[in-house]
């Protein structure tokens, strides 16, 4: 069966406007989290006043009319896809449009557009509602606009599985390539919904950190003193290809997506199974489909959002499915939680850890929760040769996705 290689990477995140700056920021232990400056935090007396905003605003990169026609989640998807496409060295002549697909997920989609247009409707009436409202708010918008831009005719898909959406997009891409449906898939996730109502809703669930006085210290995955996640925004996109196809066009592979595993908890709408059984099944499935032995997994790029239950459940899942040996890192400590983009951006950083033999530090890890019982990199990046690494992603709804990356 054909192997799936990664030939292109693209991202825009709170740590940088591209992959290189994001990765450099992570390795150096930088935080992308800061105070929210908009007036709505005061107006609604929100208990959460911190977020991880994009380092480079999309309007600085896009043409004015592109920015005008696209919701922010669509803007970041196209920016990341353009970088990944260029990185892969692809042109429209290299792949038949019918053999090119796009899979880009989002957790929430164009929520900001929905809110803005709802205000316009109420304040100024029907005729001021934009005819672009629907294409801007639909959650398949990011995938559709990337598909349009690249002329992809082999299928455009948009998995929606909350915070697992980006990882699930990569999993679907892997399955399409393994089945031989297409030769190239541009896949990832996009999210941009930092506004009052998502924050109010997550805060009412008591899922978010309220460490407002110390934004850079707020996201504390695996730390005993963690108090929830910090909302972020961004996008990550990979170009995945059938190995034979990439080799035939002389493309450089930066690594392999060796295997994928998905499962569902059927336990609670938002809470994970405390013992991490569902997550463990996803990880085991990823190792099995990838033909990777658990002993070869040197690193896990953890989902770890810094909620009380989630981090411990994930650690239990890693111990039961892989063992005590993998070295963990929790990228959300500096990136914040990019929701539907998280799995895609973190998949990219998992691959880069293997390529560069370096695991980024987990920020704010002053005292590891004793229930974690695993080696989590803190302080500074750790240099280590990696053959295989796992990226976990979980989403409200009980979605579990694990991806196994290996060296090129």
């Amino acid at each position, binding site marked *: 069966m054909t192997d799936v290689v990664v030939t292109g990477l693209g991202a825009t995140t709170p740590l940088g406007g591209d992959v290189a700056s994001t990765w450099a920021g992570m390795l150096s232990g930088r935080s992308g989290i800061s105070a929210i400056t908009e007036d709505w935090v005061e107006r609604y007396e929100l208990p959460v006043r911190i977020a991880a905003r994009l380092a480079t605003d999309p309007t600085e990169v896009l*043409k*004015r*009319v592109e920015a*005008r026609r696209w919701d922010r989640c669509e803007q970041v998807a196209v920016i990341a896809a353009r970088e990944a496409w260029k990185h892969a060295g692809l042109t429209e002549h290299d792949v038949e449009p019918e053999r090119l697909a796009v899979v880009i997920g989002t957790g929430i989609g164009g929520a900001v557009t929905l809110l803005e247009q709802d205000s316009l409707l109420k304040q100024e009436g029907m*005729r*001021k509602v*934009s*005819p*672009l409202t629907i*294409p801007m708010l639909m959650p398949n918008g990011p995938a559709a606009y990337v598909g349009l831009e690249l002329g992809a005719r082999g299928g455009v898909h948009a998995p929606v599985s909350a915070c697992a959406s980006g990882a699930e997009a990569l999993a679907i891409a892997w399955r399409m390539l393994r089945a031989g449906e297409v030769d190239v898939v541009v896949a990832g996730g996009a999210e941009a919904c930092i506004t009052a109502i998502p924050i109010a809703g997550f805060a009412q669930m008591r899922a978010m950190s309220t460490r407002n006085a110390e934004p850079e210290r707020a996201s504390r995955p695996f730390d005993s003193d963690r108090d929830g996640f910090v909302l972020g925004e961004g996008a990550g996109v990979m170009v995945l290809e059938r190995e034979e196809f990439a080799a035939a066009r002389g493309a450089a592979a930066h690594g392999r997506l060796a295997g994928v595993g998905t499962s569902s908890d059927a336990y609670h709408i938002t809470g994970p199974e405390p013992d991490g059984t569902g997550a463990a099944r996803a990880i085991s499935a990823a190792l099995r489909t990838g033909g990777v032995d658990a002993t070869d997994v040197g690193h896990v790029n953890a989902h770890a959002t810094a909620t009380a239950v989630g981090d411990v459940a994930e650690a239990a899942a890693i111990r039961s499915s892989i063992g005590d040996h993998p070295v963990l890192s929790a990228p959300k400590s500096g990136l914040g939680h990019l929701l539907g983009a998280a799995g895609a951006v973190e998949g990219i950083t998992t691959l880069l850890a293997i390529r560069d033999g370096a695991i980024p530090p987990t920020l704010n890890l002053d005292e590891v929760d004793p229930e974690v019982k695993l080696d989590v990199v803190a302080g500074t990046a750790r240099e280590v040769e990696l053959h295989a690494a796992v990226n976990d992603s979980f989403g409200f709804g009980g979605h579990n996705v694990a991806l196994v990356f290996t060296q090129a």
Partner: protein
Amino acid sequence: MTNEEILGGIAEIVNEVAGVETSEITMDKSFVDDLDIDSLSMVEIAVQVEDRFGSKVPDDELANLKTVGDAVDYVAKHA
């Protein structure tokens, strides 16, 4: 209002909505075939034309405005 003034106003609107250079927006240009403007943007342009010139553009009239010149003539008659 002169036709030149109307043309200038419409060119500004088309530039704002669709990003077409104002120098490209001349009387003989077709919105769809020459300026690559889609039906969604045409709705936005019609709303802005109404706001700017006060001439209502019903949907069945909008469909008849094929060229920039058609739009200028329409505004000249209905402003």
